[in-house]
């Protein structure tokens, strides 16, 4: 596939050498952040133009504040992955100098990367937040869930998640899901009504117009809210770079023991390891997504700085989920089916 070259070509000399937006980069961002007054040209030439990151940030903050204004018991799903870290960062900005008026909820599969759990706990402590943990392992131990033959625990998260929502009577649940991740997620609303079983019915979604989000729901129902709906993987990384947001180290290239399975590099751990014919080797890898260790793969990479990661993603020929998430490969409608069950 050489489509990128074509796209670059059609952008023409202007696009390649000096797009108007590019030369304005430094001033444009400042103007949009409001530090330069109104006489500095922003991207696109107008002093009032917002860069795409500022527009996305402003929209996400608006969504957080709408939920704070209209719901009783919202909660932020927080896994310690990059999307939820960006989500929390936006929430902190939205309510500063006051505290974030939400608690956090982590659905712990029991197979999480230790570095990520450590990061999660440090973040919670740093910001004085309250963390709820819904544990897949506890559900398995109590006989309420059964381990799958393929060993992956990602689909098992739904039951503890819905249990935590019901027990804590959460009425709005923020998720870091993005529409660019997957074709069923591309159909997702920003405010997504879930029935009393937590289920998503794509044919009965409320139309969503302008910036008028409808959060009305009946007792027992709840609303999933996706403030990063309109962000792409690249937007998330550019925002992390701009805001200097700290991430767990596994997002950057490092040496790790891995073995190949289903076209992915998996890291052995308490969840399991290489089977017959599979062999562990040390490789220089990084993670594009962070989830359950049993189904989240690493990619070969030398990108050990944020700039290198951004360049690598922009050049990648694979989506982050296509590259590293086994659970989405189960069937053509795997995500839609899981979302119907109550997955986020």
């Amino acid at each position, binding site marked *: 596939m050489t489509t990128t070259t074509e796209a670059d070509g059609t952008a023409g000399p202007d696009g390649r050498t000096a797009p108007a*937006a590019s030369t304005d980069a430094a001033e444009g961002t400042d103007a949009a952040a409001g530090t330069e007054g109104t006489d500095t040209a922003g991207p696109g030439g107008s002093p009032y133009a917002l860069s795409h990151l500022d527009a996305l940030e402003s929209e996400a903050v608006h969504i957080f*504040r709408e939920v704070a204004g209209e719901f009783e018991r919202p909660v932020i799903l927080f896994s310690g992955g990059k999307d939820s870290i960006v989500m929390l960062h936006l929430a902190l900005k939205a309510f500063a100098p006051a505290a974030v008026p939400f608690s956090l909820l982590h659905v712990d599969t029991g197979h999480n990367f230790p570095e990520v759990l450590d990061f999660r706990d440090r973040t919670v402590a740093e910001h004085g937040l309250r963390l709820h943990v819904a544990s897949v392992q506890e559900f398995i131990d109590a006989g309420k869930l059964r381990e799958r033959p393929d060993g992956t625990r990602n689909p098992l998260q739904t039951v503890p998640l819905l249990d935590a929502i019901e027990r804590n009577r959460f009425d709005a649940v923020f998720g870091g899901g993005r529409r660019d991740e997957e*074709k069923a997620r591309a159909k997702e609303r920003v405010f997504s009504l879930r029935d009393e079983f937590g289920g998503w019915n794509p044919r009965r979604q409320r139309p969503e117009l302008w910036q008028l989000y409808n959060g009305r729901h009946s007792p027992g129902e709840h609303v999933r809210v996706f403030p990063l709906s309109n962000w792409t993987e690249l937007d998330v990384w550019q925002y992390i770079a701009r805001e200097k947001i700290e991430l767990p180290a596994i997002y950057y290239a490092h040496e790790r023991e891995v073995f190949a399975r289903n076209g992915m590099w998996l890291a052995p751990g308490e969840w399991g390891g290489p089977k017959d014919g599979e062999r562990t080797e040390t490789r220089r890898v990084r993670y594009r997504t962070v989830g359950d260790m049993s189904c989240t793969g690493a990619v070969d990479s030398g990108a050990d700085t944020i700039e290198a990661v951004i360049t*690598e993603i922009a*050049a990648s020929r*694979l*989506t982050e989920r296509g590259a590293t998430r086994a659970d989405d490969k189960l069937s053509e409608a795997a995500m839609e089916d899981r979302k119907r069950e109550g997955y986020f």
Partner: protein
Amino acid sequence: MSSTDTPAAAAAAAAAESLTAAGESATLLRFATAGSVDDGKSTLVGRLLHDSKSVLADQLEAVEHASRSRGQEAPDLALLTDGLRAEREQGITIDVAYRYFATPRRRFILADTPGHVQYTRNMVTGASTAELAVVLVDARNGVVEQTRRHAAVAALLRVPHVVLAVNKMDLVGYEESVFARIAGEFTAYAAALGVPEITAIPISALAGDNVVTPSATMDWYGGPTVLEHLETVPVTDDPSGDPVRFPVQYVIRPQTPEHPDYRGYAGQLASGVLRVGDPVTVLPSGRTSTVTAIDALGENVDAAWSPQSVTVLLDDDLDISRGDIIVTTATAPAVTQDVEATVCHLHDRPLAVGDRVLLKHTTRTVKAIVKDIPSRLALSEPDEHGGLARHPAPGELAANDIGRIVLRTSEPLALDAYADSRRTGSFLLIDPADGTTLTAGMAGDAFTESANGTARAADGAADDGWDF
């Protein structure tokens, strides 16, 4: 296994470099596509996505696999956007899908809306946030009823830029005269409805003419390709001339030792430029004060403008809460409990005279009653001149109907005309019983001043069905 070891990676790296360089300062264009069922909309969308690196190898592989298992030889690019099981099974687009792609110049959010008549509400949904709409026409059929409907929806929703993409030019011999006739007819029609800017482009989405690459065959066409136009169309108006509208979302009161007296009003500027020192009025109460500080997500600034999310601090300790609107005193709108609007009814349950509903306007939700439904657009039946007609006093509106309604609200609203502000002139009607979104509303006159008179004047008695 690596994300960078594909053969195309080296070639992609150059593009990536300019993409990341432009990245942070690039602007965002939100646009929507509209077209009838077989106009080739999926092909156009597929080509735009494909040629801008937005279809990655694993997605294309999945589409190729699915296409093969259905017995199709070529990959069906519609499968990229039809994300629901039911859509793939039926081969039609049911719901709006949002797509994201980027070029070195700009980031794009594409609302890919279904073309089917019964999903007019979904085009309304996609158009509500769009700064540009691409209306597709099959060159062999020219302007048809569905084209007029799409033009009318774009005009009604005040989409600032409309692109007419005359597709399948390869099937009419790439004839300039065919394009000129369709472009002329559409432009006259859309301009009469009040669409401010219309750009007509002859394309073949299948062959690739004028989508991202200039056509080698249509040398008579000197304008931009679709992508060039999307990259260069101006998206930011100067907000400094617009009146300030700041709907209060949430009151920030830390009550901490560091900030014992901080009382900030959080919101997103719906229009205008707000400056420290501005005299302001809070509606609907009418109390006045002065802006003492503006906090732009942690940074102290002298001015903020639409659509920035900020926190505003005032001189006086007023009783202000969610649902109030802060406006500059000099440009304060009137408040009213009587609302006249054009609406698109969205739900299968009809909206009837006498219905009690909730009305959500910016951050304020009030009770309302439907007092009258004076007219409804007849979207499918031609009037006596062959145009589209309206029904007087229909009594109720069914799903996908566009009509005029009159409402009485329980409390006063600071409602602008939709023509002046898409943000403060729009509202939703909600079922108070179960929270269902029923209707999308646009306050004030339906089309621009000229639309009511000039359509008739321009075409004589021929085609002025949107006299509304």
